[in-house]
C-alpha cells in the first residue's frame, strides 16, 4: 500500500508534516497545554486520535526485543533502559504531540526462537505501533519478514548488517548504526591513508559483523597487504583468542584490525599483551566502547599495565564519546541518565540507546499529529536524510535506501579512557567511494531543554 502511494500525494503529506512541525514548534514556545503529561504541542484545532495500532490520543506504545539475560546480555542489556529513559525525559517535556511514549522491551536472550515469540506478542497481542531498535542480526532476521508482512514499522534495527537496507524487500525496516561493510571501508581508508604499505592482519567474528567488516577492508586495501585474516567463533570465547593472535603475530602483521565484540576485543588485547606483541590496533565501533574495555583490561598485570593496553587503539566513532562531557548531547544524556537511568553505567551503550531514541522522536514528530504507520515510513523516507542530532555522519534514509549513519570518524584512545579524533568523518555507502566530510553533529533542539 505504502509503495503505491503517488509521489504527488507524498509531497502533499510532507508539506502537511512540515506545517504540523512548525505548529508544534510554535506551541512548544508558548507551552501552556491542558495535557496531563505536562506536555505541550496539541494545537487548538486538531484533536489527537487513535490513528494507528498502538497510538491513542494520549499515548504511543513501542516494542523491542533485547538480550536481557544470557551470554549476550552483558553490555547490550543497557540499551533498552537507555532508550526508555530518553522517552521518559521526552514524556516529562510534553511528550510527542502531547502523547507519552511507552517503550516495552522484552527479553529474547539473543535466541531467535524467543525473538519470534516476543515480537509476535508485541505486535499481535500488545498492538505496538512500531518496533524500535530490535537488537541483533540473527535475532532480528527471524522477525523481519513477519514485521514487513504485517506492515509494522521496524525502525532502527540495532545491528549493522547490510541486510536491513533492502527497501524493496523490506520497506518497513531501517538500519541505524553504520553498516559493517561501511565500517570496514572506513577503517580500510584510514589504513590506506596513514599506514600505507604496512602488513595488515584482521581478527574478525565469523558472522555478518566480522564478515561484513572484512569485505569492507578488502575493498579498500590491496590483497597483498592483508597478510592474515583470522576468524573466531563467538561461542568458543571460553578458549580465549590466544591461538588467533599468535597466528597474526607469526604472520608478521604490523597493523591488526579488530572486528570483535567488546569481550573479544579485551581477550585479543590480553593475548597481545601475553605474547609481547604490540601491533598498531584498529577496531570497529562495535569492538571498543572505551568505558567497557578500560574496565576489562585493567587487571592484565595487577592493574599496572592495564590501561596502557588500550592506549593508542584506533577505533571508529559516529556518536559523541561517553567521556566527552563538554559535548552538549552528552550533557543532555548525562542529565537524563542521572534522572531516569542511574542504575546503568555511563558508557557507549547508553549513548547508543539515547541517541537512537532521539532520532525516533524526530521521526515521530515528522510523521504528524495523528500518524498512521505509513506516515512514519513516509516521514523517514522523505526527511530522514536531513535530520541532525548527536550523530557525526549523515543518515542515509530515502525511499530507495534504508541505510543509517553513512560513516564515522577515526579516534585514538588514550590511557585515561578518553579519545582524540584523528580524522575527519569518512562517508561512504556499501558500493561507492569513501569521501571525507566535516561532522554534521547538530545542536540540541529547544524542545529537549
Amino acid at each position, binding site marked *: 500500500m505504502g509503495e503505491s502511494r503517488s509521489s504527488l500525494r507524498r509531497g502533499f503529506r510532507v508539506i502537511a508534516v512540515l506545517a504540523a512541525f512548525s505548529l508544534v514548534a510554535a506551541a512548544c514556545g508558548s507551552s501552556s497545554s491542558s495535557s496531563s503529561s505536562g506536555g505541550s504541542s496539541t494545537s487548538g484545532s486538531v484533536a489527537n486520535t487513535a490513528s494507528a495500532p498502538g497510538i491513542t490520543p494520549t499515548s504511543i506504545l513501542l516494542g523491542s526485543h533485547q538480550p*536481557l*539475560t*544470557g*551470554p549476550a*546480555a*552483558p*553490555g547490550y*542489556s*543497557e540499551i533498552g533502559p537507555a532508550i526508555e529513559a530518553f522517552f521518559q525525559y521526552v514524556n516529562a517535556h510534553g511528550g510527542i504531540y502531547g502523547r507519552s511514549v511507552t517503550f516495552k522491551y522484552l527479553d529474547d536472550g539473543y535466541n531467535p526462537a524467543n525473538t519470534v515469540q516476543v515480537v509476535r506478542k508485541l505486535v499481535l497481542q500488545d498492538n505496538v505501533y512500531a518496533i524500535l531498535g530490535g537488537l541483533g542480526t540473527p535475532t532480528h532476521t527471524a522477525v523481519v519478514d513477519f514485521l514487513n508482512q504485517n506492515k509494522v514499522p521496524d525502525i532502527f534495527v540495532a545491528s549493522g548488517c547490510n541486510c536491513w537496507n533492502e527497501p524493496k524487500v523490506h520497506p518497513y525496516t531501517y538500519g541505524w548504526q553504520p553498516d559493517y561493510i561501511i565500517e570496514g571501508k572506513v577503517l580500510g581508508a584510514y589504513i590506506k591513508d596513514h599506514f600505507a604499505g604496512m602488513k595488515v592482519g584482521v581478527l574478525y567474528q*565469523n558472522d555478518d559483523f566480522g564478515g561484513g567488516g572484512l569485505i569492507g577492508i578488502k575493498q579498500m586495501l590491496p590483497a597483498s597487504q592483508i597478510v592474515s585474516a583470522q*576468524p*573466531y*567463533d563467538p*561461542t*568458543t*570465547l*571460553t*578458549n*580465549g583468542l*590466544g*591461538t*588467533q593472535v*599468535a*597466528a597474526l603475530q*607469526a604472520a608478521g602483521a604490523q597493523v591488526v584490525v579488530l572486528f570483535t565484540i*567488546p*569481550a573479544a576485543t*579485551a*581477550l585479543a588485547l*590480553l*593475548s597481545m*599483551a*601475553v*605474547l*609481547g*606483541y604490540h601491533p598498531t590496533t584498529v577496531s570497529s565501533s562495535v569492538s571498543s566502547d572505551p568505558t*567497557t574495555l578500560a*574496565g*576489562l*583490561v*585493567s*587487571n*592484565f*598485570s*595487577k*592493574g599496572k*599495565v592495564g590501561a596502557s593496553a588500550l592506549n593508542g587503539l584506533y577505533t571508529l566513532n559516529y556518536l559523541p564519546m561517553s567521556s566527552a562531557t563538554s559535548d552538549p548531547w552528552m550533557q543532555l544524556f548525562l542529565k537524563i541518565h542521572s534522572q531516569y537511568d542511574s542504575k546503568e*553505567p555511563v558508557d557507549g551503550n547508553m549513548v547508543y540507546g539515547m541517541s537512537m531514541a532521539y532520532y525516533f522522536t524526530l521521526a515521530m514528530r515528522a510523521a504528524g499529529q495523528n500518524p498512521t504507520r505509513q506516515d512514519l515510513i513516509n516521514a523517514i523516507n522523505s526527511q530522514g536524510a536531513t535530520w541532525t542530532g548527536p550523530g557525526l555522519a549523515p543518515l542515509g534514509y530515502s525511499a530507495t535506501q534504508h541505510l543509517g549513519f553513512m560513516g564515522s570518524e577515526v579516534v585514538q584512545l588514550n590511557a585515561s579512557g578518553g579519545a582524540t579524533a584523528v580524522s575527519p568523518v569518512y562517508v561512504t555507502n556499501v558500493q561507492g567511494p569513501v569521501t571525507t566530510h566535516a561532522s554534521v553533529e547538530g545542536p540540541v533542539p529547544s524542545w529537549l531543554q
Partner: protein
Amino acid sequence: MRNFWNFLLIGVSNGLVYSLVALGIVLIYRSTRVINFALAAMATFSTFIAASLIDRNVPYFVAFLAAIVFGFLLGAATERFVMRPVESKSPLNAVIVAIGMLIFLEAMAGVIWGAKLRNFPSHFSLIGLKIGGARLAISNFDLFIVTVVVVLLLALLVLFRYTKLGLMMRASAFAPEVARLLGVRVGRMLTLGWGLACAAGAVAGLLAAPKVFLFPNNMDGVLIFGFTAAIIGGLDSPVGALVGGLLTGVALSFIGGYLGSDLENVGAFVILVVVLMARPEGIFSSMSARRV
C-alpha cells in the same frame, strides 16, 4: 614452530581450568551418580562473591578463600536440601534439578550483580614470560593455576588415600548401603563430597574469570568443556579429570589454531566420540577394569 609451542601452552592453561571443572563433576558423580550441571552457576556465584569482597578492598587471597568456602557451603547446602530428596528417585530427576539450579543461580546472579561484563583480578601478571628473547603464552598467572591445580589434586589424593574421612567418603561413594551397615554416616559424606566438589568448582571459577571475564553465564562454556574432559577421563576418576582436562584443552587449542575456532565445538564432539568408541567409559574408569 613457535605457533606450535604457543598453541600447546595456551591449551595447557585452558585445559587446567577444564580439569578443575571436571574434578568437580567427577567428585559428585562418583558419590551420588549425578551430573551436576549447576556447577557452572555455583562457580560463577562464588566468583561474584570474591569480586564483591575485592571491590570492598578485601585482600585478594582472603576473597579467594572466602569464595572457596562459599562454594563449599553452597554445594553442601544444595546436596542436603535440594538433592537429597530427589537423589533416591531416578538419576535423571537429579540431573533436571541440577539444571533448574543452574538456571536459577545464574539468573539470581543477574538479578544481584547485573548482566554486565566485568573484570576479575588475577593477582599475578597475565603477561607472558620471556624465554630466550620471545614471550611465550605462559604467564605467572598460568604458573599459579598449575600450582593450585597440583596442590588441590595432591590434597584430594591425601584426603582420599590416607585419611579415615577419605576412606569413608570413598566407601559412601562406591557402596552407600554397605557403608551405612558399617556405621558410616553416608549422608554427611555425600554432603561433604558435594561441598568439596563445588569448592573445586569455585576455584575453577576464580581461575577462569580473569581470562573469560565475569558475568552470570561466564562459566557455561567452561562447564561444557569440563564435562567433556570428565567423560574423556572417566567419570569416576580424579586423575582422569586432570588428564581429560589437559587433553581437551590442548586438542581444542590445536584445532582452533590450525583448523579454525569455528571447529572447536565440532572438534570436542569428534574427540569425545573417538575416545568413547575406544573406551566407552573414559580412559581412566575403574568400571571397565572391574567388569572383566
